[in-house]
């Protein structure tokens, strides 16, 4: 049975890049373009993996992570955040909110799968 991932990013390009990479690795992917839509998805379903951008309109990634950890069917799922090389404070905030790990943008598909391998069996 294939694993289910939730990919959240307001940039279509980035989101699709992540989605395609995960699909190539055998995941079934659900997409969302902001934290609020993603939260609705996470409440309805237990995902095996969540990858989220941080800067997004409507609901940003940090708030999403907090909310998803607090009350959702996916509260135990590994959550990777998409960050940038020069924002250590965001990384900390993300971890405090409950993120499992992070992927630094820009990244190669192999890097993404590497990070995924660290959090998903």
């Amino acid at each position, binding site marked *: 049975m294939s694993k289910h991932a939730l990919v959240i990013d307001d940039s279509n390009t980035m989101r699709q890049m992540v989605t*395609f990479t995960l699909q190539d690795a055998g995941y079934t992917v659900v997409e969302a373009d902001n934290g609020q839509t993603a939260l609705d998805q996470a409440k309805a379903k237990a995902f095996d993996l969540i990858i989220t951008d941080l800067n997004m309109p409507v609901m940003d990634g*940090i708030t999403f992570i907090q909310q998803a950890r607090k009350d959702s069917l996916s509260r135990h799922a590994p959550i990777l955040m998409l960050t940038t090389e020069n924002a250590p404070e965001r990384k900390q905030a993300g971890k405090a909110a409950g993120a499992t790990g992070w992927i630094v943008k820009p990244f190669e598909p192999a890097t993404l799968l590497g990070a995924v391998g660290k959090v998903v069996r």
Partner: protein
Amino acid sequence: MSLELEEFLLGFFEETDEQLGQIEEGLLLLEKSYEDPDLLNTIFRAAHTIKGNSGMLGLPEIANFTHRVEELLDNMRDGAVSPSGENVDLLLRSTDCLRDLVNCAKQGLSCETEESTLLADQLQSALAVSEEGPPQTDSAQEMPRYEIRFTPYKSLVRRGVDPLLLIESLPQVGSILSLEMQTDSVPDLSEFDTQKCYLAWCVELETREPVQSIEDIFEFVDDDGQVEITRLNPHQISDPLPAEPSVEQATPDISNEPSPKAPGNQESSQPTVRKPAPARSGSVEDSNESIRVSLKKVEHLINTVGELVIANSVLNQTIGATGAADQLPLIEAMALVDTTTRDLQEQVMAVRLLPMSTVFRRLPRLVRDLASELNREVDLQICGEDTEVDKQVIEEIQDPLVHLVRNALDHGLEPAEERLAAGKSAQGVLRISAFHDGGSVAIEIKDDGRGLDTERIKAKAIERGLIRADEPLTDRQIHALIFHAGFSTAAQVTKVSGRGVGMDVVRKNIENLSGVVELDSTLGKGCTLTIKLPLTMAILDGLTVGLAGEIYIIPLLSVVESIRLDSRQVQTVAGKKEVILVRNEPLPLVRLHQRFGVTPASSDPCEGLVIILEHQNNRVGLLVDELHGQQQVVMKSVEKNYQKVEGVGGATILGDGRVAFILDVAGLTRGQ
């Protein structure tokens, strides 16, 4: 992958265009009101996304350049650099340059221009302080051994971390010499919380890999002493490799984060600045759910619906002709099919429609730059951005519109002194609006400048040999001369207006979209240019007329009125050219039957019907046999399927299955 990559690239270009638009729009707003953190965040986010995407898609020039832009924006956000006019200007120029780079990438070229290098340097020097950490290098000796102590926080599992997975990954890096799990802190079952991790591990690992690769495994849990990696080789025991925060985390950060070392405390480290993006014009529609579909599919759909519309009217006529029309259920069913088809048609057409804001978004920047270059004070008013227009129209209207705006600023609006002297306010008003006008879309460019000078235009046209000095022309006809090829010449080329495109090119572009340009000008008061375009390119509102037993279709956009002539209205000029007098205005008479070499019902103009057509402010009367009515037709190209026919712009299939020609009004009015 290559096909996917191509798809990504297409998406990337589209998205980047949008984001560059956002950046530009944001910067222009920033120039007006300095302190709005949300605004800077929006701009920053757009730049940030471009950087991330371009880096990932292997476009380093774009990524590197955007990185510089982003840094400066970040500095502004932190307050380290002020968003002064100078800096905003630099960023605006960088946005242009970025657009150029993206355009190059679109063509598969990678071009770091002189300008981009120059701008990159300027961006760099505009930064507050530039600091770069030394590159970290780490070389390993022969078969080093490490002790890894992994003491996770109890709350670790709440972050979705699976500690066992980490331990299990260690053999990927080296061979495990010993592995010990510490269970000391596991409580009694009664106190056991399944949401907590009570275990700790100590592993001895032998590897030639750099210590980095061990750290890498624990990347996501390596803070505040949860992971300690110690090198065990004898000569280095005294100097254990630190499990300190890595270089990037060591960057001093005083600005926010009151208690950086509180990973267990969820409240203390709220995101610092970010709020949900303000509901600015663009962001609302951006968040709409949408899918991306190739234009080809949509066009195919539109074509099919077009055929359905035709088939529907064939069916209607057949029912009428076979006398089945008295069967009520059949009629009711047909009526339902009719409405549904029309509905379907409208909705399918709507798929191709985009708001005018995509085009208008660029105007504030253009006007800003032109105004400062030409030393004009301009109040730019834009309205009707929400007006939806066919995608093709959106794409092709851009250049003509830009040209018209340039003209309005360069030739229309006067410098402040001149305006004041003329009793006007110093600031000129340029109003650009889009609105639906019946079945068409109108774009109006209105300025309150000096207006067209009829006498000067006339003089110049005579000088250029476009008209004879004694030719009697109405004001409207004189104004129309500015659309004549060869009117705009080197003598009036300025840096702004004279980029080798004259109004004739503008006109041609608009005609290619089956549109018309109208001009209304009052000397000293200003000038209004109105571009009228069909709502869609595929379906045309037509007037159906009959001639010699055939049906012809005239685009309704060009029809002014239809009249029945009185013999006194018909006159012959210079012995051969026929004109008709309509409300004392002489108009050339075009006998369509002569053009097409067919025999009309009657060759007496007073027995037939005359349709007054207007094109580029030129009017002619077109003589046909009779008027049938008004009908929407699906336009098919004659040129593509057969060859170009003079006077024919296309063809369509009528309800009864017959083919009817659509007249080319431009061709018919030309040379009259």
